[in-house]
Protein backbone atom coordinates (compact mmCIF):
# COMPACT_ATOMS: atom_id res chain seq x y z
CA UNK A 1 0.00 0.00 0.00
CA UNK A 2 2.12 2.61 -1.39
CA UNK A 3 0.97 5.90 -0.49
CA UNK A 4 1.22 8.50 2.11
CA UNK A 5 2.17 6.11 5.01
CA UNK A 6 5.26 4.76 3.32
CA UNK A 7 6.26 8.20 2.28
CA UNK A 8 5.96 9.49 5.84
CA UNK A 9 7.90 6.49 7.01
CA UNK A 10 10.72 7.19 4.54
CA UNK A 11 10.87 10.85 5.50
CA UNK A 12 10.94 10.07 9.18
CA UNK A 13 13.55 7.32 8.62
CA UNK A 14 15.69 9.69 6.59
CA UNK A 15 15.47 12.40 9.26
CA UNK A 16 16.33 10.02 12.06
CA UNK A 17 19.22 8.33 10.32
CA UNK A 18 20.57 11.54 8.85
CA UNK A 19 20.58 13.33 12.19
CA UNK A 20 22.13 10.26 13.78
CA UNK A 21 24.90 10.41 11.22
CA UNK A 22 25.32 14.09 11.93
CA UNK A 23 25.60 13.39 15.68
CA UNK A 24 28.38 10.98 14.88
CA UNK A 25 30.26 13.19 12.49
CA UNK A 26 29.81 16.82 13.53
CA UNK A 27 33.01 18.08 15.11
CA UNK A 28 31.21 20.61 17.27
CA UNK A 29 29.44 19.13 20.22
CA UNK A 30 26.68 21.61 20.35
CA UNK A 31 25.68 20.95 16.77
CA UNK A 32 25.87 17.26 17.60
CA UNK A 33 23.43 17.84 20.46
CA UNK A 34 21.01 19.57 18.17
CA UNK A 35 21.30 16.75 15.64
CA UNK A 36 20.50 14.42 18.49
CA UNK A 37 17.37 16.41 19.14
CA UNK A 38 16.19 15.80 15.61
CA UNK A 39 17.03 12.15 15.87
CA UNK A 40 14.82 11.83 18.96
CA UNK A 41 11.97 13.54 17.19
CA UNK A 42 12.39 11.19 14.19
CA UNK A 43 12.20 8.22 16.48
CA UNK A 44 9.06 9.57 18.17
CA UNK A 45 7.51 9.89 14.74
CA UNK A 46 8.34 6.31 13.94
CA UNK A 47 6.62 5.27 17.20
CA UNK A 48 3.50 7.03 16.11
CA UNK A 49 3.63 5.24 12.76
CA UNK A 50 3.59 2.04 14.66
CA UNK A 51 0.62 3.16 16.76
CA UNK A 52 2.74 3.41 19.89
CA UNK A 53 1.36 6.77 20.80
CA UNK A 54 2.01 6.68 24.57
CA UNK A 55 5.56 5.70 23.79
CA UNK A 56 6.04 8.56 21.38
CA UNK A 57 4.82 10.92 24.02
CA UNK A 58 7.13 9.59 26.70
CA UNK A 59 9.96 9.64 24.15
CA UNK A 60 9.52 13.22 23.44
CA UNK A 61 8.90 14.06 27.09
CA UNK A 62 11.79 12.19 28.61
CA UNK A 63 14.43 12.10 25.98
CA UNK A 64 14.10 15.47 24.49
CA UNK A 65 12.85 17.27 27.56
CA UNK A 66 15.00 15.58 30.05
CA UNK A 67 18.11 13.90 28.73
CA UNK A 68 18.88 16.32 25.96
CA UNK A 69 18.61 19.23 28.32
CA UNK A 70 20.90 17.47 30.71
CA UNK A 71 23.41 16.94 27.93
CA UNK A 72 23.26 20.56 26.97
CA UNK A 73 23.91 21.53 30.58
CA UNK A 74 26.77 19.12 30.79
CA UNK A 75 28.29 20.48 27.64
CA UNK A 76 28.08 24.06 28.84
CA UNK A 77 29.28 23.23 32.34
CA UNK A 78 32.18 21.18 31.18
CA UNK A 79 33.46 23.71 28.75
CA UNK A 80 34.11 26.50 31.22
CA UNK A 81 37.28 27.46 29.66
CA UNK A 82 36.02 28.99 26.47
CA UNK A 83 38.43 27.65 24.19
CA UNK A 84 38.55 25.79 21.09
CA UNK A 85 38.04 22.55 23.03
CA UNK A 86 34.41 23.03 22.44
CA UNK A 87 35.29 21.33 19.37
CA UNK A 88 34.75 17.58 19.67
CA UNK A 89 38.10 15.91 19.29
CA UNK A 90 37.84 12.71 17.35
CA UNK A 91 40.11 9.77 17.25
CA UNK A 92 40.13 6.14 16.29
CA UNK A 93 37.82 6.80 13.36
CA UNK A 94 38.91 4.30 10.82
CA UNK A 95 38.47 1.09 12.86
CA UNK A 96 35.24 2.48 14.32
CA UNK A 97 33.84 3.13 10.83
CA UNK A 98 34.88 -0.30 9.69
CA UNK A 99 33.27 -2.11 12.66
CA UNK A 100 30.05 0.01 12.42
CA UNK A 101 29.58 -0.54 8.71
CA UNK A 102 30.29 -4.25 9.15
CA UNK A 103 27.75 -4.46 11.96
CA UNK A 104 25.19 -2.45 9.96
CA UNK A 105 25.68 -4.79 7.06
CA UNK A 106 25.15 -7.86 9.16
CA UNK A 107 22.14 -6.43 11.02
CA UNK A 108 20.50 -5.21 7.87
CA UNK A 109 21.07 -8.57 6.22
CA UNK A 110 19.35 -10.40 9.10
CA UNK A 111 16.59 -7.81 9.21
CA UNK A 112 15.85 -8.25 5.54
CA UNK A 113 16.09 -12.02 5.65
CA UNK A 114 12.68 -13.71 5.61
CA UNK A 115 13.06 -15.04 9.11
CA UNK A 116 10.32 -12.67 10.35
CA UNK A 117 6.72 -13.15 9.24
CA UNK A 118 4.90 -9.83 9.70
CA UNK A 119 1.29 -10.00 10.84
CA UNK A 120 -1.32 -8.48 8.59
CA UNK A 121 -1.94 -4.77 8.96
CA UNK A 122 -3.90 -3.72 12.04
CA UNK A 123 -5.67 -0.44 12.49
CA UNK A 124 -4.41 2.03 15.00
CA UNK A 125 -5.77 1.90 18.50
CA UNK A 126 -4.80 4.04 21.41
CA UNK A 127 -2.43 2.13 23.68
CA UNK A 128 -2.07 4.40 26.67
CA UNK A 129 -4.92 2.87 28.71
CA UNK A 130 -3.70 -0.58 27.99
CA UNK A 131 -0.15 0.34 28.99
CA UNK A 132 -1.34 2.00 32.17
CA UNK A 133 -3.40 -1.06 33.07
CA UNK A 134 -0.55 -3.45 32.29
CA UNK A 135 1.91 -1.37 34.27
CA UNK A 136 -0.33 -1.59 37.32
CA UNK A 137 -1.10 -5.31 36.94
CA UNK A 138 1.37 -7.57 35.24
CA UNK A 139 4.38 -5.35 35.22
CA UNK A 140 3.85 -3.87 38.70
CA UNK A 141 7.13 -5.28 40.01
CA UNK A 142 9.40 -3.78 37.28
CA UNK A 143 7.45 -0.52 37.71
CA UNK A 144 8.26 -0.41 41.45
CA UNK A 145 11.85 -1.52 40.86
CA UNK A 146 12.20 1.23 38.24
CA UNK A 147 10.97 3.78 40.75
CA UNK A 148 13.55 2.58 43.33
CA UNK A 149 16.21 2.78 40.65
CA UNK A 150 15.22 6.32 39.72
CA UNK A 151 15.40 7.33 43.38
CA UNK A 152 18.91 5.79 43.68
CA UNK A 153 19.98 7.54 40.49
CA UNK A 154 18.59 10.77 41.79
CA UNK A 155 20.48 10.57 45.07
CA UNK A 156 23.61 9.34 43.34
CA UNK A 157 23.63 12.14 40.79
CA UNK A 158 22.96 14.74 43.47
CA UNK A 159 25.70 13.40 45.69
CA UNK A 160 28.20 13.20 42.88
CA UNK A 161 27.67 16.61 41.51
CA UNK A 162 27.77 18.46 44.90
CA UNK A 163 30.65 20.88 45.15
CA UNK A 164 33.41 19.96 47.60
CA UNK A 165 32.65 20.81 51.26
CA UNK A 166 35.66 19.99 53.46
CA UNK A 167 33.68 19.74 56.69
CA UNK A 168 31.56 16.80 55.61
CA UNK A 169 33.55 13.60 55.45
CA UNK A 170 33.00 12.26 52.09
CA UNK A 171 34.36 9.11 50.74
CA UNK A 172 37.81 9.84 49.41
CA UNK A 173 37.44 10.50 45.70
CA UNK A 174 40.96 9.81 44.76
CA UNK A 175 42.56 12.60 42.68
CA UNK A 176 43.65 11.51 39.17
Amino acid sequence: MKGPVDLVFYVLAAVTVGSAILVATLPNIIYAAVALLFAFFGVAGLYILVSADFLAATQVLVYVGGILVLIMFAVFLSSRISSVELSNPVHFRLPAAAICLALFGVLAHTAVSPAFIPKPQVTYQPTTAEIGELLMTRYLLPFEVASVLLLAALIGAALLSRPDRPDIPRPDMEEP
Partner: protein
Amino acid sequence: MALDKMLVVGAALFCCGLYTILTRRNAVAVLMGVELVLNAANINFVAFSHYVSRMIGGQIFAVFVIVLAAAEAAVALAIFLRLFATTGTVEVDTADHLRG
Protein backbone atom coordinates in the same frame (compact mmCIF):
# COMPACT_ATOMS: atom_id res chain seq x y z
CA MET B 1 6.18 0.19 6.16
CA ALA B 2 7.13 -3.32 6.78
CA LEU B 3 8.94 -4.71 9.76
CA ASP B 4 12.22 -5.09 7.90
CA LYS B 5 12.43 -1.44 7.08
CA MET B 6 11.91 -0.53 10.75
CA LEU B 7 14.69 -2.95 11.69
CA VAL B 8 17.04 -1.43 9.10
CA VAL B 9 16.39 2.00 10.58
CA GLY B 10 17.05 0.59 14.03
CA ALA B 11 20.32 -0.96 12.79
CA ALA B 12 21.37 2.34 11.21
CA LEU B 13 20.67 4.20 14.46
CA PHE B 14 22.59 1.57 16.41
CA CYS B 15 25.63 1.85 14.11
CA CYS B 16 25.66 5.68 14.28
CA GLY B 17 25.46 5.47 18.05
CA LEU B 18 28.28 2.97 18.11
CA TYR B 19 30.36 5.09 15.77
CA THR B 20 29.81 8.09 18.03
CA ILE B 21 30.90 6.17 21.12
CA LEU B 22 33.99 4.87 19.40
CA THR B 23 35.17 8.09 17.82
CA ARG B 24 34.19 10.83 20.25
CA ARG B 25 36.75 11.78 22.87
CA ASN B 26 34.32 13.99 24.77
CA ALA B 27 32.48 12.07 27.47
CA VAL B 28 29.19 13.85 26.82
CA ALA B 29 29.36 12.96 23.15
CA VAL B 30 29.88 9.37 24.13
CA LEU B 31 26.76 9.68 26.26
CA MET B 32 24.89 10.90 23.21
CA GLY B 33 26.05 7.82 21.33
CA VAL B 34 24.70 5.68 24.15
CA GLU B 35 21.35 7.41 23.92
CA LEU B 36 21.25 6.69 20.17
CA VAL B 37 21.95 3.02 20.77
CA LEU B 38 19.15 2.90 23.35
CA ASN B 39 16.73 4.43 20.92
CA ALA B 40 17.73 1.90 18.28
CA ALA B 41 16.85 -0.82 20.75
CA ASN B 42 13.50 0.82 21.46
CA ILE B 43 12.67 0.94 17.76
CA ASN B 44 13.32 -2.74 17.50
CA PHE B 45 11.14 -3.42 20.56
CA VAL B 46 8.30 -1.44 19.25
CA ALA B 47 8.60 -2.81 15.74
CA PHE B 48 8.53 -6.39 16.95
CA SER B 49 5.72 -5.68 19.41
CA HIS B 50 3.70 -4.13 16.65
CA TYR B 51 4.46 -6.44 13.75
CA VAL B 52 5.09 -9.78 15.41
CA SER B 53 3.56 -10.30 18.77
CA ARG B 54 0.48 -8.14 18.61
CA MET B 55 0.91 -7.58 22.31
CA ILE B 56 2.20 -4.28 23.58
CA GLY B 57 4.71 -5.94 25.89
CA GLY B 58 7.40 -4.51 23.68
CA GLN B 59 6.14 -1.00 24.23
CA ILE B 60 6.14 -1.42 27.98
CA PHE B 61 9.66 -2.61 27.77
CA ALA B 62 10.52 0.45 25.69
CA VAL B 63 8.97 2.60 28.41
CA PHE B 64 11.17 1.05 31.01
CA VAL B 65 14.21 1.55 28.68
CA ILE B 66 13.43 5.23 28.44
CA VAL B 67 13.10 5.47 32.22
CA LEU B 68 16.42 3.81 32.69
CA ALA B 69 18.03 5.92 30.01
CA ALA B 70 17.01 8.96 31.96
CA ALA B 71 18.45 7.63 35.21
CA GLU B 72 21.58 6.54 33.44
CA ALA B 73 22.05 9.87 31.75
CA ALA B 74 21.68 11.63 35.08
CA VAL B 75 24.25 9.54 36.83
CA ALA B 76 26.59 9.65 33.82
CA LEU B 77 26.52 13.39 33.67
CA ALA B 78 27.09 13.64 37.45
CA ILE B 79 30.17 11.47 37.00
CA PHE B 80 31.34 13.55 34.11
CA LEU B 81 30.95 16.71 36.23
CA ARG B 82 32.91 15.12 39.03
CA LEU B 83 35.48 14.05 36.44
CA PHE B 84 35.59 17.52 35.04
CA ALA B 85 35.96 18.96 38.54
CA THR B 86 38.82 16.70 39.42
CA THR B 87 40.69 16.52 36.14
CA GLY B 88 39.75 19.58 34.37
CA THR B 89 38.79 17.85 31.20
CA VAL B 90 36.00 15.63 30.08
CA GLU B 91 38.02 13.64 27.70
CA VAL B 92 37.36 9.98 27.90
CA ASP B 93 41.01 9.07 27.23
CA THR B 94 42.38 10.73 30.40
CA ALA B 95 40.25 8.55 32.70
CA ASP B 96 42.21 5.48 32.00
CA HIS B 97 43.49 4.81 35.52
CA LEU B 98 41.79 1.47 35.50
CA ARG B 99 44.02 0.19 32.73
CA GLY B 100 45.95 -3.10 33.22
